[in-house]
């Protein structure tokens, strides 16, 4: 693999890992505070899977660049992260958490399906392993989409409010990075425009069926280097113990 290709692949893997990490972190905040006990269990389970996925993607970054996953997670500043703003947002109410989860799960399902056929074998193997877990996440958040979208007037109103915030942010999941064309030519990573169309083809009808609308215009951030202020506070919380003693093995 030449240096350009290696750098492009590492950047994609890093962005993918960062998304999973942030979502896991936000979902885990519900542990002990969910609306029903069964969801304390379910969401903690999903958070563990996502953290597991993040670890796998960081592990592949390490193979390419030699960067230690824990150093990447606990010693990078906000400007060095490549997560999408959608997953950095605070957990909000249960509608916000579940709608974000649904939009992300649909994206991850479409992404993993394509990555399972990646010409870079470690990515193909990792994606194949994750797809099974992701299917359960997708079923879970799809069920909540319908339940809350069609439940009561209040639950529908909360879901629509969540969609109004999330929809413009969702586009950033598909924003380009340098080297994408190279990855696409090699068959290492799918074309993100095609991925976005596939995602929209699933998500827009599902939102409509759940009684949610107004998903037409969506001007949001289109560069993964641009973050919200929420990432700074998230990282301050996440990194405080690790950074209190840089010499320590935790």
């Amino acid at each position, binding site marked *: 693999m030449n240096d350009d290709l290696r750098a492009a692949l590492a950047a994609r893997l890093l962005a993918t890992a960062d998304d999973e990490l942030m979502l896991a972190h936000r979902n885990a905040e519900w542990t002990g505070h969910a609306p029903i006990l069964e969801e304390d269990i379910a969401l903690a389970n999903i958070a563990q899977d996502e953290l597991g996925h993040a670890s796998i993607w960081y592990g592949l970054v390490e193979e390419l660049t030699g960067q230690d996953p824990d150093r990447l997670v606990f010693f990078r500043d906000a400007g060095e992260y490549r997560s999408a703003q959608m997953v950095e947002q605070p957990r909000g109410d*249960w509608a916000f958490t579940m709608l974000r989860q649904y939009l992300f799960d649909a994206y991850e399902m479409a992404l993993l399906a394509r990555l399972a056929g990646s010409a870079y074998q470690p990515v193909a193997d990792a994606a194949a392993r994750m797809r099974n877990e992701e299917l359960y996440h997708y079923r879970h958040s799809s069920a909540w989409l319908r339940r809350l979208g069609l439940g009561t007037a209040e639950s529908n109103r909360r879901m629509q409010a969540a969609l109004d915030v999330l929809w413009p942010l969702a586009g950033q999941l598909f924003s380009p990075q340098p080297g994408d064309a190279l990855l696409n030519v090699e068959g290492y990573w799918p074309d993100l425009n095609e991925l976005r169309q596939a995602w929209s083809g699933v998500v827009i009808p599902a939102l409509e069926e759940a009684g949610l609308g107004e998903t037409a215009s969506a001007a949001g951030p289109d560069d993964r280097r641009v973050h919200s202020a929420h990432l700074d506070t998230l990282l301050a919380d996440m990194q405080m113990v690790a950074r209190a003693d840089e010499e320590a093995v935790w």
Partner: protein
Amino acid sequence: MPPELTHDERLTAFEARIARGEKIEPGDWMPDDYRRQLIRMISQHAHSEIVGMLPEGAWIEHAPSLRRKLILIAKVQDEAGHGQYLYHAAESLGAERQDLIDALLAGKAKYSNIFNYPTLNWADVGMIGWLVDGAAIKNQTMLTGASYGPYSRAMVRICAEETFHYKQGKEMITLYAQGTPHQRRMAQDALDRWWWPSLMMFGPPDADSTNSTTLMRWGIKLKSNDALRQEFIDEIVPELHAAGLCIPDPDLRYDENSGHWLTGPIDWDEFWRVIKGNGPMNRERLRARRTAHDDGLWVREAMAAYASRSSVIGKRSTVSGQR
């Protein structure tokens, strides 16, 4: 048709079954007081798991490595699972989960006193695993032999998971106790704060334990509070010493004659003060549970509305299908 047995005859037969080591199962005859005592114990245990998610859960967002973060989420999730499992065990005795939870939220139900203490540094997570889960395992291992089948079987399953909690805590603290000066201070500070409350987890001294006699006759409880506490002390003291930690008890000594570690006096005034609601975190724990419950109200209403609508839609489609 056999003649109806009198209450006394049934009680005699019931106590004989327990004496033979048989398990009592949900449909079996049992004295009202047995049922009442079990619901009290099992629901307190369930509440302890639910409230117990809070002190450690607060540190998930600060866990300093991917591995520690993963382990901690899994551990707190286990506690939710134990709570769910135990509420089901209480339901097998005719209790309703919602009534039990309402009693907790109203401040009328007890849960383990230990969770009314704050978690102030990251090492508290490890110390809770080692000391608090270690103490809980002592109690729960005893309860695997309890006479009520569903409770006893729940304990077998829960103990297996608690053993992992204990091991991860011990591993973490042992590492930190031999780590950097900062880590050693964290570990010692955690021990200084958790040592005495963890000894109190076994409950008041036998002389002051009001429920114990009946519970022991009916095989709900098999060892006294003081006996279990001593077993725990004898096991944990050498382990803490081996890790290089200093136990915050100037009177602690090994008694050659009895072969036991003897501690200084436990501050039972503090125990009763905390149990009556005046510990450092009592109000905060209940506030957190009530907030989760109140914030979740609209979600539960939406679930119910959607479920009833779906069943109506289901019926309609059945009708149209018959046409």
